[in-house]
């Protein structure tokens, strides 16, 4: 796997280790592709946020960059009308049930959603979808961090690190559809779960759902 390949992203020639996922190659070379659910350590990407679409020469439909291993001679374009439309819809859907109010948010200025909005010129107010405000109480039972589910975008990063990095198994997804959320066993407070307050999940949260107390 240590073979190097040369690929083209937006007319830039880039060398990268063969088999590395396109998303990470692009990000390492300062080419931004929106993403929320991807984690570099994760072998099998969940590809659930649907934000990292790109156009690849020879493939008719846009492809998710986080699942595409790079191969010699790959030609990629990060923007096209099709890609923009897909990303816009995915972003709007995410924003409709994400509690806004960036000024009061602990992730203000470090938030992935803000970054995507800035990079792609996407608005926080959607004309097509009605906002759906989640009404979840904030879990403040832990000393080091708080968990505000109404800001969660269900990317699944925290669940993955909880299971595979921290190996605790305190949080997971439960329920289905619009009610889906990250919970502990029995939806109890984090303080009543096996959580060890290692803080790994807080570090990977792309938005202000999990945040350290100052």
């Amino acid at each position, binding site marked *: 796997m240590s073979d190097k390949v040369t690929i083209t992203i937006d007319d830039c020639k880039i060398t990268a280790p063969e088999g590395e996922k396109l998303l990470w190659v692009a990000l390492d070379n300062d080419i931004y592709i929106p993403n929320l659910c991807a984690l570099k350590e994760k072998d099998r990407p969940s590809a659930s946020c649907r934000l990292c679409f790109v156009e690849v020469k020879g493939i008719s439909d846009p492809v998710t960059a986080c699942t595409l291993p790079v191969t010699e001679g790959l030609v990629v374009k990060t923007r096209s009308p099709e890609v923009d439309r897909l990303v816009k819809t995915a972003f709007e859907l995410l924003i409709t049930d994400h509690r806004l109010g960036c000024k009061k948010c602990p992730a203000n200025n470090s938030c992935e959603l803000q970054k995507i909005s800035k990079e792609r010129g996407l608005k926080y107010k959607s004309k097509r979808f009605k906002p759906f405000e989640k009404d979840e*109480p904030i879990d403040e039972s832990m000393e080091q961090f708080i968990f505000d589910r109404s800001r969660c975008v269900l990317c699944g990063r925290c669940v993955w690190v909880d*299971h595979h990095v921290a190996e605790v198994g305190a*949080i997971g997804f*439960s329920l*289905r559809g619009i009610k889906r959320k990250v919970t502990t*066993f*029995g939806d*109890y407070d984090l303080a009543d779960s096996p959580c060890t307050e290692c803080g790994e999940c807080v570090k990977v949260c792309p938005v202000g759902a999990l945040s350290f107390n100052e």
Partner: protein
Amino acid sequence: MLRRNIDVFEECKNKALLKFVIMLGELNCVKEMFLLELLEGEKEFILEQVSEILKNNRTERENLVPLLQKVQGVLGYLPEPAIEKIAKTIDIPAVDVFGLATFYNQLRLNPPGKYQIKVCMGTACHMIGGQIILESFERRLDIVEGETTPDRKCSLERVACVGCCAIAPVVVVNEFIEGSLTPTRVDGILLQFDGDDQEEEAGEQEQEQESEGGQDS
């Protein structure tokens, strides 16, 4: 709880403790998923049954859904200790089993009530206002769909089409179908439960008296 909070409040002038008291107050309004307390001896019974099922079946992760179905088949629902036990045996976090159990409609966390109310949410019932019927039940019973009243008398759930769309909106109570529902009829149905219960009680008493009378003579 509030009284106790106030007592604690007066005892502690310490600020940190104060925060704790406020937190306690908030905890009370959190709705829990495992709503009902287990009856006496129920936990032992549950664990016994679950161990039995775990002994006779493959305990691998791939087999998790069939296992949960079997447990529910015996107990009628998936109580907290059962889920914990299954997770421990398969050696996966309990929260993963919990996620699965809350994902599928078939699996339930609360016991079926004496009267199982199933509100139809199929296309026809949905269009004509099934939601209103469901909400009426929720308001009157003070539970939401998927839950059981604390006395285990009524459980409420939503189902897809039950096959009699002509009389929508429809509700099925213990296999008995009620059609063309209105919120007033919902009250009627609930009243009828009380009536049925009273009749049942009276019947039981009569029987007792009779058997006593039989012994006397």
